[in-house]
């Protein structure tokens, strides 16, 4: 079957029910989506399909027919996404293992809501677990990124 990830087409030979997460990680070598729970409880595996944040551990490979994007498309060293810039400025990450998922979820939030309140951030971001307890800085970074996005 074919997958489109970050604009690249890939041909993969896997079981249709293999979760997208494991296709990305073990078949394509794309490791920014992280394995944390396998049951959509932690959000570390979050990627976008056609712009929507999804838990890649819950998407069967055969259903991943849309455009898959990972954090590599969101931004990079030269052009970090405003969320990434805010994450750096606030030094959100501790262990950092959940943070790609947090940022991908937050990107979906800001794409739909350019000026989220704390309650709206809570509602969208509470499916993403952080064991280190970086939540206060996640909130602050999302507000800053939203502000930066509104300025552009």
């Amino acid at each position, binding site marked *: 079957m074919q997958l489109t990830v970050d604009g690249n087409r890939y041909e993969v030979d*896997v*079981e249709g029910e*293999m*979760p997208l*997460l*494991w296709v990305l*990680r*073990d*078949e394509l*070598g794309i*490791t*920014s989506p*992280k*394995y*944390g*729970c*396998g*049951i959509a*409880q*932690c959000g*570390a595996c979050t990627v976008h399909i056609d712009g929507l944040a999804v838990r890649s551990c819950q998407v069967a490979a055969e259903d991943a027919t849309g455009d898959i994007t*990972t*954090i*590599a498309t*969101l*931004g*990079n*060293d030269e052009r*970090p996404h405003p969320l*990434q810039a805010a*994450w*750096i400025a606030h*030094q*959100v*990450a*501790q*262990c*950092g*293992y*959940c*943070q*790609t998922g947090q*940022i991908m979820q937050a990107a979906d939030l800001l794409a739909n809501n350019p000026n989220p309140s704390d309650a709206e*951030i*809570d*509602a969208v*971001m*509470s*499916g*993403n*677990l*952080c*064991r*280190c*307890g*970086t*939540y*206060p*800085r996640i*909130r602050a970074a999302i507000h800053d990124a939203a502000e930066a996005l509104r300025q552009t």
Partner: protein
Amino acid sequence: MSKLRTITRRTVLFGSAAIVGGVAFGAYFVRRSTPNPLLADISDGEAAITPFIKITDSEITLIVPRADVGQGIMSMQAHLIAEELDVDPHNVILDPGQPHQAYFNGRIASNSLPFDPLDESFVPETIRDLMEVVARLSGAQFTGGSSSVSDLQERLRTAGAVARETLKLAASQKTGVPVADLNTEDGHIILPNKTRMAYTNLAAEAAQLEPVTDVTLRDPSNWRLLGKPIVRTDTKAKSLGQQDYGIDLILPNMLHATVYANPGRGGGLGTYNATQALAMRGVRSVVEITDGLGVIADNTWRAFQAAEALEVDWPKPDYPASSAEMWRVLEDAHVEENINSRLRDDGDVENALDGADVVRAEYRVPFLAHAALEPLSATVLVETDHVTVWTSTQIPHVIRDTAAKITGLDKSQVTLHVLPGGGSFGRRLDHDYALQAIEIAVTIPGTPVKTTWSREEDMTHDFPRPIHMARGRGKVSNGKVDAYDLDTISPSLTKSWFGRTFIVPPGPDTLLVWGAYDQPYAIPNYRVTGYEAPRLLPIGSWRSPGACSNAFFHESFLSELIFEAGADPLEERLRLMKDHTSKRVLEAVGEMSNWSGPDIGPKRGRGIAFCHSHHVPVAEVVDVTATENGIRIDEVWVAADCGTVFDPVNAESQLIGATIWGLGHAMNCELTYENYAPVQTNYHAFEGMRLYQTPKFHTRLLGKAPHIQGLGEPSTSPAAPALADAIFAATANRLREMPFDKYVDFL
């Protein structure tokens, strides 16, 4: 490099001032330097001036031997060296190095000695020094106990200064300019005429010199990097999704494996049928490992699927099958013959309580998993005369020794690449996952195998925080706490964990009473007794071990007595507090929170707790509201004093993170055992705090304590008792058992 020079260089006295305080045995032997591991494999023209710094003609490498599992210690170690060496920590190579005696942790064992941590008199200090010597000689390279900063800060700054002065001497000999006229900046020697000479261009000359060890560390007022906000060296990669963890390693021709181990810990393998698993797509083999089976496949998910298809008749382990039975073991253990320590025994508790109106209470805390977000993983390549391991670990020396033992190779034939960890919280102070990964890889020499635990395996086979209970008896008189007697009962974490990874320290089990016996209160009649319950399942160090349970007991019971006395919770603690640093911390949290008592309005409540652990006093105030949908934690104030703060940004991260850790697990986490294994095997049943439950935080570090200490753990312990105290103020419901959601709902 000539043999002669190697020997000379290896005997250079290094960092001894930080290590030995004049202990009696073998002064020469313990004072002489530990060998420099970097000298073994450097080429001509390369300099390894200390075990922490390697300079070649093209690059500078800083060895940062303490493992980063999220606490930021990699960056901190680099900044400590860089402060004196004058390099940009973001512009050099950071390498955890190979496990070696030179990187021993001198604090973790000496901190477990049964002394009042505030007692710096001759005998405790001498025996602490002695324990450091034991650690030094053993080469135990632990990352843990919030000890990295206190243990290494002077050694690393000294290493930076020694290297800098040696490079200056090399530049002086090359140019004829006196050393006193040379300056350093960003990896360069600066001559008086502003000419810049790169350190890398002086490597060959510096390698010929005896290191300049007569150095003076910079006064904090002259620090260039430390003491102000630091940008962690891993912040950018972790924000761009570019950080690779152990679980992300990809090697050519690598296979993927997982394990299915006896759900009962230590129960062994038993009979099994792997026919179905072996027939599944991508499965290469099923192999026997310690306590279970390993499945090797071409994809982790396929290995997971095959592991689920294994049929095994598991032998029963040697501990009680259920939580209910284990709790009975603890209850039955509260008898005199199980007394392990009475390290606090002030006044005359028995006399004070005799015939008095005694206040009594019993407290319990459950087993808890570490459940770091990155499931445990290790990659291993076994070759004829070498074994290479890639993993995240807090005990690299143990993994090296394990790899040598399993493969039959010499320790020198083991290469260990310590990779960043996606959390740990003490879990990577054990090495069972690496042991299994090595056992799996041994079955296919020449092929690298990455073994990944499923989340379910990770939680089933944790070494959890032990169940722990306490019974308090106390008395108040004239509005004051007059007598306080706490019995704290748990299996010995010291025997379980030290027994697996080091040597069991002699004497009382201090972890059993940490956070209780060592609190700096001057209660007139004050006693803390540790009761060692029989061994249950193997248990482990969980962020702030001992203290995370005992502080809940100790502070909750103190709060109950203060309530009985009708006193103010802050005022009475201040009255009882005998340690000035701790008193200032309590005063600070009162000022920050504008403290005026526990009553802050209808359906609201304010709680307070204090704990002195890891040599850091921490006081926390928690505000809650009892809403129609449950308890909401509104706001939290944290005051602490870890001495001079090297990095206020990461210090705040650790203070808040550890507090959230303490609050979240107190709210809703427990492992309960049925049929020898935990019922909770994933995050749906073990959530901790989520973002919508996260309160507003206010933190303050006083920076006045005399010694510099780490902050990875200390703020964990006061969180649960402060929250329980706040819930009592809001609801009149005194919670004496975790998790609190057994008794109240949370938002």
